[in-house]
Every structure is written in C-alpha cells, then in structure tokens.
C-alpha cells in the first residue's frame, strides 16, 4: 500500500524549479520598484492628521450629514447617483452600436481590429482627463460628470457586450427564418431575448462602478460628492470630511448590495 502511494507521489511533477524562478523574478521586480518608497517622510504632524480624520468620522458634522439643502449629504448623494445613472445610460447608447460593429460574427476581421483599437484607446485615457475636457464643453458641474462617465463606461460595456453578442446562438435565427419571420420578428423574438438580460446585468454592474467613479469627479469640478469632500479636506474641516465619508460609505455599500441582488434576479430569474 505504502509503496503504491510512494509511486503515485513520485509521479507528481516537480514544481520546485518553476516556483523558484517565479519567486526570483518577483523579488527582482520588487527590488527594482523599491525607489517608490523613498517619497515617505512621516512626521508627527502626519499622524496628528490621520488621528483627526479618524476622530472626524466618529464625530461627524451632523448638520451636514442630515441636512436636506443643496449642500447636505442627502442631496450630494442624489446628485452622485443621478450622474452615475445618466452616465451609464448615455455610455450604453454609444456602446451598443460600437459593440455590434466589433463582434467577429457580424463584421469582417479587419473592421473588428480597427474598432477594438479605438475602444482600447478610449479606455486608456484617465477619467479625470475626460473630465477636464468636458468641462470646456458643458461648463463645470454635474453635466460634465455625466459625459465623462459615459465615455469612460464605453470601454468596459462594449467589451462585455461584444462577448455576449459573439455568444449569440445563430440556430434560433435560422429556425425563425425557416418559419418565414420578418426581420422585425427575428430581432424581437430571436435576438432581444438572448441579449436582453445579459445587457441589463452588465449595465447594472457598470452603474455600480460608475457610482464609485462619480465620487471622485468632483476633483476636477465635474459635480458629485467629491468636490465638497476635497474642499473639506483641504480646509482641514475633519468633521465635515467624516460626515461625507459616512455618506459615501452608506451609498456605495447599499448600491453594491442592491445591484448584486438585482443581477442575481436578472440572470437567474
């Protein structure tokens, strides 16, 4: 019995060399990246600020946290949600045609390569750069945020849409053809049911991500909960920072749970 076990054990491939090489490569990369640590100069003032932020979270500015006016956390949250919602929608409107002309089962290969490079290029530009560009178009404010998120979303939405489109079962379309269905009927009964739930689930997921993204757009003046937070941080108003961070936490947490539930329901009924 034990001989049999040993025989099996000796057949196990030796991974020692492979692991060793991987670890050495990692260590070399790590050592070569060490210069990034040089920037640290921790002072006692830094710790004081860290402590102030922590205490600010536990003693938030309640008039800001529960305020219902234009500068209250509730309104800021509503604005952030609105930016993310519209941004996702506009992004989807642009992404749908773009993904159809990037799917290998619909258009020829050269077209696919061109459109995919375009999508990749759109995706690389950081969101804050788009934010700064759109401010020239729409003026500072949440509108610029909507357009920024729309463009930033295109990359991921179309990437996932393309996968769904390429998974389309063409057999269904052929059988609809055999019935003598019209083009409209083919789209309504052959394509929409196949794509619908996946598309919606992708959009819900992207909405969740856009919400996080929307919280930082305030940095460049594109609206949302980010701007007042940056102002409060720069002015060392820790209680206000605390109130906004609590609002942010609740917002992201609740939306994440809801979007998970919704996607489960959409995908699995």
């Amino acid at each position, binding site marked *: 019995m034990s001989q049999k076990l040993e025989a099996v054990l000796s057949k196990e491939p030796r991974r020692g060399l492979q692991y060793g090489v991987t670890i050495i490569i990692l260590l070399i990369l790590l050592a070569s990246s060490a210069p990034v640590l040089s920037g640290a100069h921790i002072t006692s003032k830094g710790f004081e600020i860290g402590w102030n932020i922590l205490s600010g979270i536990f003693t938030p500015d309640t008039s800001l946290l529960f305020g219902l006016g234009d500068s209250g956390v509730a309104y800021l949250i509503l604005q952030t949600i609105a930016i993310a919602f519209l941004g996702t929608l506009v992004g989807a409107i642009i992404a749908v045609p773009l993904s159809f002309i990037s799917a290998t089962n619909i258009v020829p290969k050269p077209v696919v390569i061109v459109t995919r490079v375009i999508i990749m290029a759109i995706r690389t530009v950081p969101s804050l750069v788009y934010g700064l560009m759109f401010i*020239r178009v729409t003026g500072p404010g*949440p*509108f610029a945020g909507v357009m920024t998120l729309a463009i930033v979303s295109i990359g991921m939405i179309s990437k996932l849409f393309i996968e769904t489109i390429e998974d389309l079962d063409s057999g269904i379309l052929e059988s609809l053809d055999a019935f003598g269905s019209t083009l409209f009927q083919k789209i309504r009964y052959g394509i929409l049911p196949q794509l619908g739930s996946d598309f919606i689930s992708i959009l819900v997921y992207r909405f969740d991500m856009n919400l996080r993204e929307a*919280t930082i757009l305030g940095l460049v003046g594109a609206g949302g909960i*980010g701007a007042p937070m940056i102002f409060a941080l720069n002015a060392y108003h820790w209680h206000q920072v605390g109130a906004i961070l609590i609002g942010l936490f609740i917002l992201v*947490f609740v939306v994440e749970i809801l979007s998970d539930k919704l996607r489960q329901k959409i995908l699995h009924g």
Partner: protein
Amino acid sequence: MSWYDKLFEAESFTLENGKQVSQKFTRVPLIIFLLLVGIVVSVWVTGFSVVTLFTNFVGFWKILASMFPPKLPYFMQVWRPLLMTIQMSFFGSFFGALVALPFAILAASNITNNRLINLVVRFILTVVRTIPTLVSALIATYIFGLGTFAGTVAIFLFSFSFVGKQLFEYMETVDMGAFEALTATGANTSRAFVTTILPQVLPTYLSTALFAFEGNVRYAAILGYVGAGGIGMILNEKIGWREFQSVGMILLSIFIAVVIIETVSQQLRKYLS
C-alpha cells in the same frame, strides 16, 4: 411584485386538453415607467442638455485635435514618471495581494469557524473598498507627505480589499473533503490548509492579483492629480499649461504601456486557468 400582479390581471388560456394556464401581465410598462422617472430626475439634478452638447461638442474635438500629432521628443521626460507609475502599481498590488491572503482566510467561514471574526474582517474589507482610491491617496499624502509612497499606499489599500474580497468568496466554494481528511489523520489546521486548500485557490488568487495589477497601472496614472506621484503629476501640469501635444504624448505612452502589460498579464492568466 405581488401587488403589481394583483393590480393587473394575469391572462389565462385554455389548452386543447382543457387545462388552464395563465401568463402574468407584462412587466415592461412598469420598467419603462421607473426608467423614465429615473431619467427625468437625473436630467433635472445634473442639468443634462442635449442641445448644449451638440452646440458645444466642437470644444471637445478641438482639444482632442490639438493633441495630434503627439510631441514625440517629450518621451524623454515621460518615461521616468511612467516607470514610477508602473513600479507603484507593482509594489502596491504585490503587498496588497500578500496581505489579503491572511485576511481572506479569516473572512472565509469554512476555514475560520468563528462568526464574529468573519464579520469583523469582512466589514474591514468592505470599509476599505468603499473609499475611492483617489481619496485614500489624498489622505495618504497628508499623512506620508507628497510623493510616490502615498500613491503606493493607496494602491496597496485598493488591491488588498479587492483581492481579499474575491479570494474569500472563492475560498468558500472550494472542496473541503481533502482538508477534512487531513485533519482527521492528525494534521494541524495550517498544515492541512497549505496542502489542500491553497493549491485549489492559488490559480484564482494569482490571476485576481494580476487583474488588480492591470487595473492599477491604469488607475495609478491619475493618482498624481492629488500629488501622489507618478505620471499623473506631469499630466496634470501639462493640462494646466495647455501643452496638449505633450498631453497627447503622455496619453500615448500610457496607452502603449497598458497594452503591453495587459497582453502579458492576460497570457499569464490564461496559463493559470
């Protein structure tokens, strides 16, 4: 949704064999109504206007056009911050993924059989995850001073929470049979974990860490905006000075770097799965 089905009656059909079947009233009107309400409220709150968009969109193209052709010689000043950005992401992702492992073990209910510890660790992971990376970078610059270290800390926090969450969720789905068999033969928990659970989760763990690294390179590019080092610093500076050809060169360099890193990492991830 039961109130909706009560409000609108289900349509019923009688089949040939006399059986009654019913089809619920379509949900489409309700979904469209909710969507419209959402759109109207959002348009009102954000001041979205299609007219402004079409009349002023020229401005967007103008900026985009002024980036071409990118100022190629400027690359001599770009490569160093770009390398810095990649190093920041690598360092942050590596340690984030490393620290995430013990936390994931503590958060997984099938390995750490203590409801309180599970919940506390999960709560920590969630809290860290909700803070936007840019905000944690800004706070880090207050604490650690301006520079790449603050950015590395922000990336570390993000990778830690992201990998931690993915890993503990995956760990809860692994096959526990081998683990139980080993503990039954007298192996202690850590030994049993290393020989049975770890090999099962290792590919997913590594590919999640690589995925986080890919995303971080792109994300690290904007951390400079709050003074947390890397290529974002010069990007911000050049946009401020309206030297759009240099901006174009910076964006081109980021694009090429991201393409290379994503290709390599995707190959590695394919190999892992």
